[in-house]
């Protein structure tokens, strides 16, 4: 196959991989899938870099790919640490569990409301109070039940 159609085909594959990754990182809510999508973007870029490198007949693009892979590994490692920490804290991989930092004027994204009776503060009529009532983080309660 001559070099120009080869380049075009490889660039097409690269562009498709890249756009799939971009859509994934924008649209998915699972933290692991989001990072997988970011990796897919980088793989698409690697494909097109190698294609350009072959088309121009020099090694520059391939060397770039080696560096990209290294950086991608570092990024994935650190991202997985965060995901693991997030999972052990909230017990879920949903990105919507993490929305306590936001503009004061913006509301929280809630998938389905609980019936109003469930959101009332619990009362313990049969127990005698022992010590002070522990402080509860309202945000944390909400998102455990609501998201």
């Amino acid at each position, binding site marked *: 196959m001559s070099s120009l159609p080869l380049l075009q085909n490889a660039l097409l594959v690269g562009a498709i991989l890249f756009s799939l990754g971009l859509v994934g990182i924008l649209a998915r809510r699972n933290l692991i899938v989001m990072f997988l999508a970011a990796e897919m973007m980088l793989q698409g870029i690697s494909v097109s870099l190698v294609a*350009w490198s072959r088309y121009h007949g020099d090694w520059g693009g391939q060397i770039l790919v080696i560096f990209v892979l290294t950086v991608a590994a570092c990024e994935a490692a650190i*991202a997985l640490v965060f995901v693991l920490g997030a999972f052990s804290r909230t017990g879920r991989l949903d990105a919507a569990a993490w929305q306590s930092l936001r503009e004061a004027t913006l509301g929280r994204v809630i998938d389905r409301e609980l019936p109003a009776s469930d959101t009332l503060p619990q009362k313990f009529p049969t127990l005698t109070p022992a010590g002070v009532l522990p402080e509860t983080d309202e945000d944390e309660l909400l998102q455990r039940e609501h998201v």
Partner: protein
Amino acid sequence: MNDPVNIGTLLSGTLSDTLTVSLPLFRPELTLSATIVLLLLCRMLPLLRLLDSALVALGGAAFALWYAWLDMQALPVFAEAASTAGGRTEIFSGLLVFDSFTAYLRCILAGFLVLYIVFTKVSGIPDREDGADFYSLVLGATLGMCLMASANHLLMVFMAVEMASVPSYALAGILKGRRAASEAAIKYAVYGAGAAGIMLYGISLLAGMLGTCHLPSMAVELGRFAQAGAPGGSVMVLCLGGLMLAVGLAFKLSAVPFHFWCPDVFEGAAAEVGAFLSVASKAAAVALLIRVAYGLGMPAGGAAAGELVADLAPVRHFAVAVIALMAAVTCTLGNLAAYGQTNMKRLLAYSTIAHAGYLMMGVAAAMALAGPKPAAAATAVGAVAFYLGTYVFMNLAAFAIVAFLRNRLRSEEIAAYAGLVRTSPGIVVATAVVLVSLIGLPPLAGFVAKFLVFSSLVQAISLGVDRQLMLLLLVVGGVNTVISLFYYLRVLKVMTFDPPPEDRVGEAFPLVSLSGAVVTALAVPVLVLGIFWSGLYAAAQLAGAFAS
């Protein structure tokens, strides 16, 4: 096509170039790397574990500053520097470039690092256990930022951005026990991974179309494209590549519309981390923006390269349009959004976004002036460099005040600062100095910096290059300065006029204390640089000499 190269001569040539030219000009970065290794080694050995990692890091940063200062001293004076494009030397076979701008930025970054380590040592985050991790991350990120300031190759641009970003993600989450810190780290990492991917795709488009990643060679190729009248399709691809590259840079600069991470990360992470991200990261990002814009828009030899300068005019025009529009939007949105904030760290985050806008205005003016009047462009780059120099003190002082007040009051809400003037007048005066300087009022350093940037805009208008855009920037800059007056002064109003809250936990914060001394040491230069600014100005002009 290629001449046969003897592998022996190739190796010995590379070796001698690396050993005699590159490595001596790379001493600050080498010092930082050695310090990171030392920090991690110290923790492994039983006796050395007793050594405080802040001291090790401080020693390393001081050495790096010393070497950066020596490199700065060794530069030719301004008149000579201007004729030799800032003493430009390509090192490591063209991956990096050493010139007056590199030397100046490294001085700024290393100097910031010294102040920063002292500040974090006093403020108590990180604690002793986390110290080695924290400081090796900080030094590693600074190493990446030094590379950002000297990048001369798109591979290096990408690597440097990642080297600065990846440790920053970890820094944002350094307070492992706090939920908000984890959230900040996750948001920063997701956003950063996406932005890096888009930037890299832009790099692959540009590099593929032009057949090289070396910025000066890319400028030559671009000039050839422009002269030959390239077909519309390839111009589209080049523009797309440039815009995607700009996405990555805008993420680092926290420029609108890629600023969403900034307020959340600043609010969630510790104030100490915010200080690092808002000063060092921003300075390096501005430097990288100048490097990339100049690398693609001007030939390496400066104005001496003759007709290539004229050929590259469309590239420069494109860069000016992108940077100027982004600057205008960034500045306006940053200032407007800061207005309604109740959390001091979030307010400062929007304030840094707005300042990124002012800095980009200076870069846009420099790019507009680069073709018709290189000497004025050098002055404009010098103005941006001066702005960065004063910004170190202003913003580090602002975040230091937030951190120390947090230690006393257990709160970072603006409302918690009410009535501070009755118990701790000294800290209120220091805050006033810093905030008024951030507004840009005389006689403080922020005024001089802003004045220099606006005067380079005026120069571009008077020369009539990209006149409408420059006029727009000047008006937007002026209006924004007025807007910013309100939200900075609101903080001071709360501190002085409002009655103190009933349930205040903290005690008074005297300026005569260790933390007070740090605040004073950061706030006094803001005042002094506003009056005696000629020294820093001369250094900044020397930094800009590479552009003439």
